[in-house]
Every structure is written in C-alpha cells, then in structure tokens.
C-alpha cells in the first residue's frame, strides 16, 4: 500500500510543471469541445494530436491525451441533453432521459446530474485505477465469451421492461436494432450479409450515423417545423448540481452503475457506449417504477453517465496493466505509446512507474476538472447556441450530423444512413415506436452474436454457456427478467384487478 501512496505522490510531482499542467487543462478544453461536437470522437482527436506530441516528453504528451479522452466521454452529454444530439457515442443513453428532462424545462438540472454523475464515475474509476488496476485487470480476464454473452443478454432482456406502455413495440424495436447489427460482413465467417453486392455496405451499419439519425436528425426535422426564425425558449443555462437530498436518492443507482461501468470498460472490445446502455438497462430493471424511465428521471441520466466515465477509466486499467487496448481510443493511445518507445503491460509499473502514475493521476485530475470547468463551458456553449434562430439551429444540427457521420469512417454510405435513419426515427416516433431499444439492440447486437458463436466454438457447444456459474446465473436471470413483465401482467389480469390503471 505504501508503494501505491509513494507512487501517487510521484505521479503528482511528475505532472507538477507549468507545461504539463497547461497541457492537462488544454486537454480538458479540447475534450469538452470535441465531445460536444457530433462526429468528432475522442478517438479522432487523439489520433490527430498524437503526431503533434512527438516533440514532447511522453509524460506531458500522454497527460494531455488522457485528459482529452476522459473529458470527451462526458461532454457528449451536453448536446445530448440540449438537442437530443449525442456529441459522442457514449452519450447515447443520456438522450433517453436527459433530453426529456430538459424538455420539461429543467435543462440545468439534467446537465447537473450528467456532470455530477460523470465526475463521480470518472473519479471513482480513476481511484480504482490508481489503487487496484493490476488486480482488476486480472479479474476481468476470467470473463470469457460465455460470460460476456450472458451479460449482454441480460441487458437485452431488459428491453421488455423498458417501455411498459407498449411492450410489443419496444421488443419489436429492440429486435429491429439487433437485426440492423447483422448487416455487413459476418465477423465469424467473412460472409457478407445483405450488402446487395455494394462494397461499402460490407462495413456494416455504423452505430453513430444510426444514432445521430434516429435521435438528432429526427428531432431537428421536428424543430424546423415550428417558426424557423424564432429563437429557442431556453436561455442562459446555469448548471445546477444535485442537492444533498437528490444525491442521497441516487446512491443506490451509483452503487449499481459504477462497478458495472468500470468492469465493462475493462473487458476488451466492449467499451463505454455498451457500458452506459447496460447500466441504463440494469437501472430500469432494478427500479420499482420502470415505466418512469424515458420520461426524464434523474436515475436515467445518472446511471449511464456514471457508467460511461467509469468505463473509460476501466479501459485505461487494462491498457496500463496488461497492454491490451479495451477501446478504439486506447488502441490509438497504445500505438502512440509504442511510437514514444513505451510499452504498457504488466511490467509498466516496474519499468516506468513515473509514467504510469503520472497518467493515472492525470486521469483523476481530468475527471475532477469536469465538475470545475464544464459549468463555464456549458454557459458559453448555451449562450452561443440558444441565440441561433431555430431554423438555422436545425440546419446546423443536421449538417453536423451528416458531416460528422461521414467523418467516422470516411464512408459516403454513412451519410445516406444518417439521413435515412433521420426519417425512420421521425416516422417511428410519430406512431409511438420507441427509439431507445433500437439503439440498445444495435450496439449490443454484433457483440451478442459474435460472443454467442465464440462460446459455441471455444467451449465445445451449447453446454459452454453453463460451464461457469457466472454465465449460468446471468442467463437464468436474463430469462426471468425477460418473462417477468409478462407474468406480472398475466397474474394481474387473471386476478381481474384494475388493469392498466396504474400503468399509463
């Protein structure tokens, strides 16, 4: 333990020089801007900044990149709350309740919840990173394909309790989302599915154009129908942190979302977006009032925002402790580290303790800076954006979504996808088909399929799913979770209770 404390002190001292601190703060600012811009992801920014860091020492360079990485995960929620436009994919789940809360007239509260939860998830995640990274990483390795599949299955099963008002539609949309994930090349066999011989389709539907289309473009299409020369109603947003009472009510949420987020972040190739959606689903399931989700309740913002920042730290855990990139951004960072002549891995803490602790301390400070620096950014941002007349704002959102979707993969197909799904989202929502399950299905779909099939191959068949107590337990819980709402309503109707009275 004393080794850790001296390590932390070493980390603090090694970033205590004007250049490093300046770069850390600059990293936070860049992260805020990048995260709030649809189409500019943390991955892109880190890739763009990397070559510029070669003149620097490795510590200041990666302190800055870590700050960008940590903050960009949060700031996507700003646009998600204000315009239903997730500025970063990790904020997808924040639109579900954040935007509805803002629409009810509490954007400052919604942003406050998002900011505080991100801060909490990120800071706790960074502390876990500092204290027990190697142990955590080793523990996560025990999670094989069967366990990952079971975890994803559980999140998917919760779709049935997501929109109690119309379960059939919610489940249909969830399956629709899962099906969208099937388009493109099948990872396991290389077979191209539903590509109609068009090469660009073999890359499959990217999650970001679909997400931006369904939520942002469809909302912008609605926005421009109103008088386009009028400015938005909400102005001058002063972020309000949750009060002590509100915080106390959220503690159970944090107790669920934080470890879940951190753990999913550590699993390689799963990522913060998945973490936030799984945390959201878990929260719905654990709630006594699942029907309130999607109507703008604090738990619906707190769970995904806490989980995604924790997951971002989780990805750093496995990167630093084992040298395995858990997400796209950490993969780019790993490449940069190698170009700097460093090789993260189990020996990093022995060979380059100064570097390792500097990065971890920087991650901690960056997450704390979220709560210090973002109110000013949000004020500035809303001041600018809410002076824009509605017609122009709608145009701006649509254009950013179109160009941003292109930017993800430099693929014209994504431009078509964002527009098409803009219309699809618009039509579906008009007729009461919920959009959230599509996003959950699409994000988890390919993961569910590949992990399922990987389990079959590596564990020698279907029995593989029940070879470990973790996966067996999770699968049984998923089945129960999926069927439970139906059983509940069946029992209710058989008893002839006042059906539907408390439900709508």
């Amino acid at each position: 333990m004393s080794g850790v404390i001296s390590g932390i002190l070493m980390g603090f001292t090694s970033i205590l020089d004007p250049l490093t601190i300046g770069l850390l703060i600059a990293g936070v600012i860049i992260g805020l801007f990048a995260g709030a811009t649809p189409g500019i992801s943390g991955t892109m920014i880190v890739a763009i900044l990397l070559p510029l860091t070669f003149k620097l020492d490795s510590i200041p360079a990666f302190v800055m990149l870590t700050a960008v990485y940590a903050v960009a995960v949060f700031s996507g929620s700003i646009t998600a709350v204000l315009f239903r436009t997730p500025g970063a994919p990790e904020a997808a789940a924040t639109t579900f309740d954040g935007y509805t809360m803002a629409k009810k007239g509490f954007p400052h509260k919604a942003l406050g919840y998002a900011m505080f939860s991100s801060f909490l998830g990120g800071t706790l995640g960074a502390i876990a990173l500092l204290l027990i990274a190697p142990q955590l990483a080793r523990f996560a390795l025990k999670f094989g394909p069967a366990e990952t599949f079971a975890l994803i299955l559980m999140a998917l099963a919760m779709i049935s309790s997501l929109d109690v008002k119309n379960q059939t539609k919610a489940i249909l949309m969830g399956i629709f989302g899962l099906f969208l994930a099937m388009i493109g090349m099948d990872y396991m066999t290389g077979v191209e599915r539903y590509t109609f011989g068009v090469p660009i389709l073999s890359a499959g539907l990217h999650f970001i154009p679909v997400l931006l289309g369904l939520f942002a473009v469809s909302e912008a299409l609605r926005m421009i129908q109103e008088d386009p020369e009028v400015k938005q109603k909400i102005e001058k947003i002063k972020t309000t942190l949750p009060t002590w009472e509100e915080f106390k009510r959220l503690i159970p949420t944090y107790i669920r979302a934080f470890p879940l987020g951190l753990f999913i972040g550590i699993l390689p190739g799963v990522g913060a977006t998945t973490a936030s959606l799984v945390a959201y689903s878990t929260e719905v399931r654990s709630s006594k009032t699942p029907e309130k989700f999607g109507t703008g309740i604090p738990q619906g913002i707190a769970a995904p925002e806490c989980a995604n920042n924790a997951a971002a730290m989780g990805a750093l855990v496995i990167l630093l402790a084992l040298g395995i990139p858990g997400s796209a951004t950490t993969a780019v960072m790993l490449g940069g580290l190698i170009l700097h002549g460093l090789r993260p891995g189990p020996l990093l803490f022995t060979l380059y303790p100064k570097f390792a602790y500097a990065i971890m301390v920087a991650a901690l400070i960056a997450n704390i800076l979220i709560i210090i620096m973002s109110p000013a950014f949000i004020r500035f941002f809303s001041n600018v954006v809410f002076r824009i007349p509605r017609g122009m704002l709608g145009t701006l959102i649509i254009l950013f979504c179109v160009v941003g979707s292109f930017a993800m993969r430099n693929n014209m197909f994504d431009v078509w996808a964002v527009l098409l799904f803009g219309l699809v989202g618009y039509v579906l929502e008009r007729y009461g088909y919920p959009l959230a399950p599509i996003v959950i299905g699409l994000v988890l779909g390919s993961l569910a399929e590949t992990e399922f099939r990987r389990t079959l191959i590596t564990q020698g068949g279907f029995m593989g799913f029940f070879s470990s107590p973790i996966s067996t337990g999770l699968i049984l819980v998923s089945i129960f979770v999926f069927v439970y709402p139906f059983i509940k309503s069946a029992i209710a109707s058989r008893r002839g209770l006042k059906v539907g009275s408390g439900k709508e």
Partner: protein
Amino acid sequence: MMELLAKKFDMCRSRGDTIVALAILISSFYFLYLTFQLPIPKQGSTLDVGPRAFPMILLMGMIVLSAVIIVQNIKAKRICELTETPHPRNFWIGVAFLFLYAYLLDIVGFVVLTPIATYLFMYAIGVRSKKILIGGTLILWLVLTVTFPMLMEVQLPRGVWIFREISYFFY
C-alpha cells in the same frame, strides 16, 4: 397473449401505426428470403451456427411481433386522435433537399455544395430573413469547413472537375 395485450393497454387504432408495422412485416419477409440465399461456408468451425442463424431468429421475431401489432390495431375499438400537427409542405421539400445533398456531395464536393444547400434548405423550411439566410449560411459553412476538413483532416468529398480544384484550396 395478443388479446391480453390489447385488453391491457386499451389499444386505439391508428393507420400510421399499422402502416409502419406492415412495412416492417413485408421487409422482414424479404430479408428472410435473402437470409436463405446466404452462402454457408464449408470451412470454419463445425460447432458454429453459421451466418444465417441469428438473422433468421431475429427476422422471425420481427414478423411475429409486427403481425401482433397489426392485429391489435385492427381489433382495437376506438380510433386514435391525431395529435400531431400536419407537416408543412416545405418540410418535405427540405427533406428532399437533404437527400439531394447526399447525392450531389460526390459530384459537386463539400466546399461548393454546402453553402448552396444550406441556403436553399433554410429557405425551404421558411426562413425569409436575409440576415439569417446569408449570415447563417456563411457561418455554418465556415464552422464546418474549419472544423472537419481543416482541423480534423477529414477528407470530405471533393467532387469532380473544377470543384475538385476548388476544394484543394481549402483542404
């Protein structure tokens, strides 16, 4: 179960709802047909369920559920009140413009097409103030051009012929 659900939520009948479900139903059948055409690779693990299994299950699920929704809608007694405002004519023109934008992007290129499309789009959705039209177009164009191709080095479509030459001036 269908009746149970219909009773439980006191469904109302909505034509748009049915049309959406019908569209999903029909396209699910079409994709199911395509799924049966998918090749099954000879190599690969014998334990794998192959590329067809997952989509097939999902499509069948979609067929059943969309059918349930259609039946619910037909059986429902009362007709939904239409609360939505009708679309202004200009809205659909705007949507058409967006798709035209995507289509022309590869030909005219980002730099030239964007300001034209922005101006026309804003006009189409009903902006008439010259200040917003011209100022807005310029600002949007500037912000997008600076952010994406210049700062983020995104290679947005350059278009062909002279448009390509123009784009080299910016990125």
